[in-house]
């Protein structure tokens, strides 16, 4: 029998997290993310993991941080209002350097919005939802298979950089079922939990950075004295109210991800070899954008697609190079216009950047993006 089967995006996300070593899930159900919690509730007990349904989304975020500090790779999943509630503790995870993955299966907002309807309106919330200067990693899958793959990547990045990672899914992919063949355990690279590299006698400091600027913080229960705080702290983990320590702490928090930026910023190209124009899209919208690109090609328009898999850090280099190459860029996104600002910034005036936006509960039809491509081409020929 073939390993191919019909699977839902949310289900694949749960499978991917499990394959990457997640052994704890804390959450509170909310459409359109609920199947992730259901999947984890079914899968975790089979591998000795724990599933806890908490009283609300804030507690769900707190409990996964606790589990992570105690040594378990941890996941939570939510949508819209739930993700808003989690923001304070997402910042805590960034400050205290606690690995954790937050899945956001986006729905129409603001507030309770449209509970079952698709949207990609949380792009900027993913980046700046919690206050203060902090780095962020966010990934966005376009297929059921990629929901699995990006879940693995999200867990790996959270562990490697000891930072919160947001898996920015959308309802299109979350609820979509399609044929998928998942990789075997041997085919998956798993980043293990970082371990303390010194003993207490050797002067171990939990927040002393390793060579890659990430600290090897011991888990609770490993026999080390660990102090965890959201206050700015030095290498001991205890708060220090000095300008120097503050500057160094915020610098390191950013630099640990900046130095690996090229490696974690994934972009996929389609029909770009001879392209004179490009559509930039991500997540479920890229599926429709790709059909629009194929339809435009049939009409003789030399257009390709650049798909952002990594949303944050933004693919500045790829977009800058793209803008130098093409006559115009169309950004298609299921919101009022968010990632388009980043594309404009990275394109830096090298070519026109136009927006194809939709925010009415329904997903794009290929014709709508095709029209955007045709307008872009017409504008370029004025």
């Amino acid at each position, binding site marked *: 029998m073939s390993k191919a089967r019909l699977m839902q995006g949310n289900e694949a996300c749960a499978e991917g997290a499990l394959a990457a070593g997640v052994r704890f899930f804390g959450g509170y159900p909310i459409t359109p993310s609920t199947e992730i919690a259901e999947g984890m509730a079914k899968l975790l007990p089979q591998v000795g993991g724990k599933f806890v349904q908490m009283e609300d989304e804030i507690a769900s975020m707190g409990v996964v941080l606790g589990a992570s500090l105690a040594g378990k790779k941890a996941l939570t999943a939510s949508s819209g209002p739930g993700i808003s509630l989690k923001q304070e503790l997402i910042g805590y995870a960034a400050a205290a350097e606690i690995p954790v993955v937050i899945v956001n299966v986006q729905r129409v907002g603001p507030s309770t919005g449209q509970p*079952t309807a698709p949207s990609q309106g949380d792009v900027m919330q993913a980046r700046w939802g919690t206050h203060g200067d902090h780095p962020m990693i966010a990934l966005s899958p376009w297929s059921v298979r990629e929901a699995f793959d990006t879940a693995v990547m999200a867990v790996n990045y959270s562990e490697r950089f000891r930072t919160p990672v947001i898996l920015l899914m959308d309802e299109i992919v979350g609820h979509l079922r399609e044929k998928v063949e998942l990789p075997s355990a041997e085919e998956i690279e798993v980043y293990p939990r970082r371990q303390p590299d010194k003993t207490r006698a050797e002067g171990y400091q939990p927040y002393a950075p390793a060579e890659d600027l990430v600290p090897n913080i011991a888990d609770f229960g490993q026999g080390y004295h660990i102090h965890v705080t959201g206050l700015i702290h030095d290498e001991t983990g205890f708060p220090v109210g000095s300008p120097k320590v503050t500057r160094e702490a915020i610098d390191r928090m950013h630099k640990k991800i900046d130095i690996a930026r090229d490696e974690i910023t994934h972009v996929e190209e389609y029909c770009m070899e001879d392209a004179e124009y490009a559509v930039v899209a991500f997540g479920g919208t890229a599926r*429709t954008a790709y059909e629009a690109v194929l339809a435009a090609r049939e009409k003789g328009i030399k257009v390709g697609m650049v798909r952002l898999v990594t949303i944050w850090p933004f693919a500045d280099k790829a977009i800058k190079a793209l803008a130098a190459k093409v006559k115009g860029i169309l950004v298609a996104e299921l919101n009022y216009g968010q990632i388009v600002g980043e594309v404009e910034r990275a394109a830096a005036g090298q070519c026109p950047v136009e927006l194809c936006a939709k925010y009415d509960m329904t997903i794009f039809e290929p014709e709508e993006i095709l029209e955007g491509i045709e307008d872009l081409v017409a504008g370029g020929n004025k």
Partner: protein
Amino acid sequence: MRKQIRLSGSGGQGVITAAIIYAEAAVAEGKEAVQSQSYGPEARGGASKSEVIIDDGPIYHPHVKTPDVVLAMTQKAADKYYGDLHEDGILVLDTDLVPEPPAFKNIVRVPITKIAIEQVGKSLFANIVALGVLTKIIGLVDLETVKTAVSHRVPPHTIEANMKALQLGYDAVK
């Protein structure tokens, strides 16, 4: 060849489950399939719609544009979802639940829910009767493959009744 199918009704009739099973059967036969769904915030009694696209090649945009087959299990669903049918497409209606068929040239009326109640014993088998009807009309996936897919999805003690429902639906189409 691409086939686009839309199953519609009200929440609780099981049209989404029927769509998933059909897509699973297509995948079991080595085809590409995507299944999507939309429903209101209310789970039961609200409008419910599921779409399946089957193809030999990759499927990107997941929504049906010009369906080849539309199943409607309520009058409201029939009125709302038949409009964009392909001109040679087929509109499948539950005879008793859609008393006023829309003006469309190719209509197949089957007393789906009545068959489920009177011959299988419960209205909750209506979605599997409908699946049998669709299997016959679409003709893309083998009945035996659909049977296997149904048996994998439903509770073991209901397999026999579901097989009966599937066959009755299949045979109801002349």
